[in-house]
């Protein structure tokens, strides 16, 4: 688990720690940068955290993957709201000065019926072991739609 990349990224992987650009509001996750990936400014970044939920922006169902994955596997582009945001809604530019933007990330789904997947749907982020490095687990979040629930 403490091979360097996983050690470096633990705060993001395990606690959803992110940073927000003062200049444009872009939420950088999981990387912590000095320059903003969106506006290119070398600005101030504020520490923030992401909620354990997200909104599906688009998705695919993966049928062909290496053995390390169960298939069929839904994989999505997710908007994950900041903790304390009024709304992590799908349209980004929410009103409310404290809302802030969501972070946009790839999300692997787990324990989810592929038929339940839909754009605009909310899913819960759940902590799981993703893989191991020589027997030591690397944990982070996957997404799931509770069975029988299709929002």
């Amino acid at each position, binding site marked *: 688990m403490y091979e360097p990349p996983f050690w470096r990224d633990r705060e993001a992987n395990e606690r959803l720690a992110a940073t927000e650009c003062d200049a444009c509001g872009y939420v950088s996750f999981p990387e912590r940068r000095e320059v903003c990936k969106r506006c290119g400014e070398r600005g101030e970044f504020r520490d923030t955290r992401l909620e354990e939920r997200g909104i599906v922006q688009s998705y*695919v169902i993966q049928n062909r993957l290496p053995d390390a994955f169960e298939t069929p596997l839904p994989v999505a582009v997710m908007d994950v709201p900041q903790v304390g945001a009024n709304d992590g809604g799908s349209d980004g530019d929410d009103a409310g000065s404290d809302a802030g933007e969501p972070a946009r990330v790839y999300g692997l789904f787990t324990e989810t019926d592929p038929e339940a997947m839909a754009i605009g749907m909310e899913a819960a982020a759940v902590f799981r072991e993703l893989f191991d490095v020589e027997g030591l687990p690397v944990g982070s979040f996957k997404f799931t739609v509770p069975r029988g629930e299709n929002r």
Partner: protein
Amino acid sequence: MSSGVSNSSGTRGASGGDIGGREACVIGSGMIDFGELFEQSTDDMAERAYLNAIEDVDSGISPQEIDAAWFGTLDIAGDASSGAGLAHATGLFEIPVTRVENACATGSTAFRSAVEAIEAGSAEVALVLGVEKMRDSAAGLIESAALDQVWRGRGVTMPAFFGMRATRHMHEFDTTEEQVAKVSVKNHANGAKYPHAHYRFECSVEDVVESPTVTYPLNLYDCCPVTDGAAALLVASEELASEYTDDPIHVAGSGLSTDSLLRSEDESLVGFPATTQAASQAYEQASIGPEHVDVAEVHDCFTITELVTYEDLGFCAKGEGGALIDEGVVELDGEKPVNPSGGLLAKGHPIGASGVAQLAEIYEQLRGEAGSVQVDDPEIGLQHNIGIGRNATGSVSCVNVLERR
């Protein structure tokens, strides 16, 4: 990459163009038949494409006249490629050779680099050689599913990366599975007529939508095959070009850009801003707009890629790619034929070779030498690649515009 029109606005990221007013021209092209080429090594393919390009030059060329070369390959086969790889395959030692790797834009970036060197006056005649041996390894690209990444593209394969755009495009613009499938039908119809294509069969919309699902919403016939291949181009300064041919083809513009799905711009859910950025650089250098393009070879690694690329290149408005193909505009006999060669879907996608091959096809089209897939008297041709970088979190696009004058 220059034109008579002043180009002083200095588009950010645009380079080349108008250095000392020198222009570059393509003077020869060489292809090999793409396919499953177990009998040929990387070097065999590269050598044959090179020799075909040499033999294609109207007034002949001797290897001693080539003073620099660019080598495009991802080296998927693990041949430990470098500039020396090109020299070993072609015998062109003792000159500068630069290996270029830029995801699926590798071949087109290699070409662009050669053009820039000629425009800058640091080369007079340059070879651009793209090659990829895709089939020697059974693992293929599926093993590139970023297994040891946490957030950076874990489990996101090539069809997933592009399929994301399909799901969202269908959701946002009511694009249908059948419209997406028509890209495959069109390109296979073209590929069936194109002698260098890997797959030369025709298929129907039904065949596409009923083929096995690879990654929903993409089926097998929505995906390009795994193909070995090589292609080569010879580029010369405008002054020298006329010594080699009476019909040189000018490089009118070139653009190269990168972007990322994760910059939170919603356009990147339904297309590729990198393509729009690269195209805008190329159009500006060429002093043209998308309406001036007579024929295009664009990146159709998946059907949806071509459909959103119509929009990203400005061939139609965002969201209208489905209507464009319904109207037949991009068919071989349409107003703006796209992928007369069959595209990557039928011709194949040997990554380092793909962009070079597309440029070779545009060169043939503009010279009226495209045989059974020749379109009606084109003057301006566009070539486009879009590639995935950085474990599916980045994208890179290269666009080149060629012109017959």
